[in-house]
């Protein structure tokens, strides 16, 4: 390890003490040990790709959330909170909670009883092979890019905080993920994600606790932020009446309909990275409870992500700047706020845990991408399109090799991502390309029996193409944003919201028109796939406090109260 630390560049924020190094090394040893321990339990396709479908609601729910707690969550959104204020919390509340509850109560029963192994797999059952191929290829493309983003973000943090060489960080983390996912498959990824969930909280929770103490409590923090930035930085909704009244340059239509109704619905209900964890649940009740448990914890993630960003705005002596400016001036960018806060409060031991929390977050996101990519490649691309006659053992081996290849592609992608100035804009653009139209296709497939195979395919294709067209249009001519977002005052994130909204509407419109012009699918072929033609199994005769609906209602009440408190 001494040799590894010697790779450091002189600009490091902190120096790890020996105890910190022990904590970081212990984390790597533990995750690799879990992978090694589980290697004997990943011999069949069902074990390797679906974790044996035996996860409890708690394990599936925490893993569901942890797979999303990647680099962008921890570092990117803390930076966004510094840049845009509490508005960034929308991505955790209205941009997540309704979608997670919708997944639990409306969509999960169809995913679960169809016994599909993936979201593209559901599209095959509902709309046929072309829709599956289109969805699988676009997902595989997106997921390796996401994985590359994760790696790059992690390597940047390690460079800033510890001065580690960026190449060293990329290779150590990616090889670790490759080893434990290759050995234990999805079960290993899920187990490590749950472990990482606890480590992230253990390592990151101290920053808001000490930060609030230093700032003098929430009331004083609001005063400090108003002095150093603007009063609008601590209001969730009151500045969203128009594009020009808030730091994000967006209005409530974009947040409610673009983010809440389309992007978040698309991400949390159709992105296989997160849905795969729920499909591994042991029964229908666990499958419904898992996203609700995830939603319950998701509401409180802003404490360790958004609050440090706001605290940075109030207590850090230096002013952080955009990435492009930081590169030129040598200062710190918005994305550096979390490591800066970590260095501010955490001494020996705590610093090691904080660094471990960041590494854990990055690795859980990466493992999620890699395991989802492996399943989609093996089951939705390789098996139907390349070799449909292999044995179960053959597909498990393919899964192991794909894990390694997927990690290598991600490493290559990480180097490509270094060319982009803003991590967040890049990923938001990707969401808009694929996720919003996919949500349109899946939700119509589940809720509207008249949707046909041709309608599903052309709707998905046209929605995706419309999104790419809008993004390219604004890239070539930035003034075109006023047409996409319907306002001359709109800023970058508003583009993503409205782009998603339009591409969803294009997808729905094309699907409806083409479906009505083509021959309906007989009802008998849609049993188990479409609402109204499927008998949704009951969760059983359980007490009220064990019913998913009860907990979903409770989460909804807390969600509403939180939005009112921070209005």
């Amino acid at each position: 390890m001494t040799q590894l630390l010697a790779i450091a560049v002189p600009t490091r924020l902190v120096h790890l003490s020996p105890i910190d190094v022990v904590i970081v090394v212990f984390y790597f040893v533990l995750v690799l040990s879990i992978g090694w321990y589980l290697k004997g339990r990943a011999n069949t396709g069902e074990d390797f790709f679906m974790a044996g479908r035996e996860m409890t609601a708690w394990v599936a729910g925490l893993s569901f959330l942890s797979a999303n707690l990647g680099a962008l969550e921890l570092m990117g959104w803390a930076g966004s909170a510094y840049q845009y204020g509490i508005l960034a919390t929308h991505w955790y509340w209205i941009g997540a909670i309704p979608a997670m509850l919708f997944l639990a109560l409306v969509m999960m029963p169809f995913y679960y009883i169809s016994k599909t192994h993936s979201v593209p797999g559901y599209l095959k059952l509902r709309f046929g092979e072309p829709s599956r191929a289109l969805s699988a290829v676009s997902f595989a493309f997106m997921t390796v890019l996401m994985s590359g983003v994760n790696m790059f973000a992690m390597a940047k943090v390690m460079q800033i905080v510890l001065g580690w060489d960026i190449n060293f960080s990329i290779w150590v983390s990616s090889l670790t993920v490759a080893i434990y996912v290759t050995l234990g498959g999805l079960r290993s990824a899920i187990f490590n994600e749950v472990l990482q969930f606890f480590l992230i909280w253990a390592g990151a929770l101290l920053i808001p606790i000490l930060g609030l103490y230093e700032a003098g409590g929430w009331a004083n923090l609001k005063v400090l932020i108003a002095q150093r930035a603007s009063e609008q930085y601590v209001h969730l909704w009151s500045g969203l009446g128009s594009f020009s009244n808030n730091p994000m340059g967006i209005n409530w239509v974009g947040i409610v309909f673009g983010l809440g109704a389309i992007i978040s619905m698309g991400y949390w209900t159709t992105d296989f990275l997160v849905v795969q964890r729920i499909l591994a649940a042991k029964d229908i009740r666990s499958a419904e409870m898992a996203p609700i448990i995830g939603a319950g914890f998701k509401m409180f993630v802003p404490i360790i992500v958004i609050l440090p960003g706001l605290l940075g705005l109030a207590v850090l002596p230096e002013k952080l700047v955009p990435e492009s400016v930081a590169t030129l001036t040598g200062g710190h960018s918005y994305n550096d706020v979390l490591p800066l806060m970590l260095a501010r409060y955490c001494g020996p031991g705590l610093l090691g845990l904080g660094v471990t929390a960041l590494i854990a977050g990055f690795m859980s996101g990466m493992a999620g991408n890699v395991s989802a990519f492996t399943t989609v490649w093996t089951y939705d691309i390789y098996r139907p399109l390349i070799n449909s006659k292999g044995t179960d053992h053959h597909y498990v081996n393919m899964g192991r090799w794909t894990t390694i290849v997927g990690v290598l592609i991600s490493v290559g992608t990480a180097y490509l991502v270094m060319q982009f100035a803003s991590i967040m804009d890049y990923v938001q653009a990707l969401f808009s390309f694929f996720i919003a139209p996919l949500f349109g296709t899946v939700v119509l497939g589940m809720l509207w029996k008249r949707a046909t195979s041709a309608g599903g395919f052309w709707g998905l294709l046209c929605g995706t193409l419309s999104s790419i067209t809008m993004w390219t249009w604004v890239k070539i001519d930035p003034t075109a944003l006023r047409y996409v977002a319907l306002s001359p005052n709109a800023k970058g994130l508003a583009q993503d919201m409205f782009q998603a909204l339009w591409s969803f509407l294009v997808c729905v419109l094309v699907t409806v028109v083409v479906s009505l012009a083509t021959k309906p699918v007989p009802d008998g072929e849609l049993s188990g796939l479409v609402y109204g033609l499927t008998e949704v199994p009951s969760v059983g005769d359980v007490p009220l406090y064990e019913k998913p609906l009860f907990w979903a209602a409770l989460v909804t009440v807390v969600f509403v109260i939180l939005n009112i408190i921070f209005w």
Partner: protein
Amino acid sequence: MVSIWFFIGISLAVNGALILAAGIYQVVYPPENPGVVLFNLHANVWWGAILLVIGAAYCLKFAPRRQQ
């Protein structure tokens, strides 16, 4: 199969013990330049202790022998 909660217990307990030890060392031998703000709160002592207690509780409750 060993429960995932047992692994989590090990992780929290070991990390908690290491952080607590580092914190106690700094209480006994205070550094001239702590390098962090709010050093006087000795966060690594009480945070390490909290993690150690939670981790130990998980280890006891989900120990493989007890699960069998």
